[in-house]
């Protein structure tokens, strides 16, 4: 991959993470355990969706500037290739709705299903804490667009982290049942947290260029903070050491296919229309 392709791959990873976690959280809308929390979760879903849009717009700009030959190689989707063959440029919705799963770059954690409030809280906590630490560093990115997205997101992510940390504590410290449930959720989602800190080729190139942060120190900080919240919540650190990975390179869990089936339905059934 040349540098431009790598930056696109990286931008899409940030966008896809945001889109997919936003999608999962939006599934709660109307189904929350209490009205106030329904509203809070929808707010968070909107923050993620907003970030996804900024990043997809940036990715589309990058892509539209590629030489015609390069464009053919980037995405496998027939629908996208047909669109390009017509000479059209692409936009945020084409990237969200016309790529297939193997061209999605989000981490496996964000596509895991909601299951119940405990799993949702645990997934959000792991991801929000990562995001908080990551965006704190990403603000210094040498890529101006990415750095400005990080700066705006940091305020939102700080709130998300407060929300999910408080819920981990509330559930852990609450009742016997809630303690059991959050512990189980944390244990089962643990194997999806390793990937957050594993640098793939894209991370290495981006880091070398000062565009993305070094993941190593983030992991130490992340673990320490998880431990501290778990202590307060009186739940145990999971002991599993085997970690799943592949999302960043397009190898996903089965869940992503179904997310995309819903998310992309309209653009697939009624292509080329404006809504």
């Amino acid at each position, binding site marked *: 991959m040349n540098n431009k392709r790598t930056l696109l791959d990286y931008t899409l990873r940030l966008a896809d993470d945001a889109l997919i976690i936003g999608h999962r959280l939006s599934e709660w809308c109307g189904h929350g355990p209490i009205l*106030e*929390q329904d509203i809070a979760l*929808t707010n968070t879903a909107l923050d993620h969706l907003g970030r996804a849009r900024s990043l997809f717009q940036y990715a589309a700009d990058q892509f539209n500037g590629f030489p015609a030959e390069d464009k053919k190689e980037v995405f496998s989707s027939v629908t996208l290739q047909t669109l390009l063959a017509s000479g059209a440029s692409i936009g945020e919705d084409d990237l969200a709705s016309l790529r297939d799963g193997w061209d999605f770059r989000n981490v496996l954690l964000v596509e895991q299903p909601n299951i119940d*409030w405990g799993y949702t809280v645990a997934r959000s906590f792991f991801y929000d804490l990562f995001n908080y630490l990551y965006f704190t560093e990403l603000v210094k990115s040498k890529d101006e667009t990415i750095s400005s997205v990080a700066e705006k997101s940091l305020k939102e992510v700080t709130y998300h982290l407060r929300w999910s940390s408080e819920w981990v504590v509330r559930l852990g*410290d609450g009742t016997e049942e809630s303690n059991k449930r959050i512990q189980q959720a944390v244990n089962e989602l643990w194997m999806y947290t390793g990937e957050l800190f594993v640098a793939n080729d894209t991370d290495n190139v981006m880091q070398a260029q000062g565009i993305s942060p070094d993941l190593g120190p983030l992991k130490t900080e992340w673990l320490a903070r998880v431990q501290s919240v778990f202590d307060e919540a009186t739940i145990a650190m999971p002991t599993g050491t085997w970690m799943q990975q592949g999302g960043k390179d397009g190898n996903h869990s089965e869940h992503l296919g179904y997310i995309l089936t819903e998310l992309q339905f309209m653009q697939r059934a009624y292509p080329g229309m404006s809504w």
Partner: protein
Amino acid sequence: MTVHSFQEHFDSLIDREIAIEPKDWMPDDYRKTLIRQISQHAHSEIIGMLPEGNWITRAPSLRRKAVLLAKVQDEAGHGLYLYSAAETLGVSRDELYNQLHTGKAKYSSIFNYPTLTWADMGAIGWLVDGAAIMNQVPLCRASYGPYARAMVRVCKEESFHQRQGFEIMLNLSNGTDVQKKMAQDAFNRWWWPSLMMFGPPDAESPNTVNSVRWRIKRLTNDELRQKFVDVTVEQAKILGLSVPDKDLKWNEERGHYDFGVINWDEFWNVVMGNGPCNKQRLETRKKAWEDGKWVRDAAMAHAAKRKERKAKAA
């Protein structure tokens, strides 16, 4: 004061259009009517999240998805203010939920119809929120203060919702043939249920007389329905959609549109639970509530423990 003079004082406040506040004396029937009306409205907001929520994960563009999410979130917010307004009358939110979940309390029947295509998001905003505004704007001057104040905020947001619905429809009607077809199909399905939203004809509306007297209601069902028809028919013209009513005709003498006979048999059946989605909507609400029980219990238990720990530390 005797009960008699309490009543006189209350009547004089009503007559002078002075707001009744939570601590004021009020007749039992006034309180009951308000609780029924406000909680029905709150329940309608909460159940109303479901038919639109149905399209959040499938919205056709990221922009539409964001707008729809924000809209459904506003409805949750409306539910929240309205439950709070009802609480000032001495009933708890849990009790009101219980009335909803056991089928004792009603909600707007319109939400028992399914949302089958994306155009339904447009039709709901345009027609359902449009009808809701007609019903609700006069309530901003309702005699009960907390209700009237909640309605001011609700109406501001509803008018934004109505515009976004109309904009979805406008976009579809300026679109491809299949988009136009989608818009017309949604209009056909939502038109009559929207007219039913104003409730039974005045002659058969048992609650109207007292509600008008108490200024909880400002216009009758039929007056509001006529107003809605007159406004909406003109909007349909802008959209290039045909109103699914062969009897619709401008009546020069009345200065209003005449319209066909509403199928009240269908209306009462949907009210009684035989609509296409009654069971599904209520089950979904109940499931959310029951699945959330352990979460609410945990939050309460944690809050109590924290309080206890704080007291011990002090």
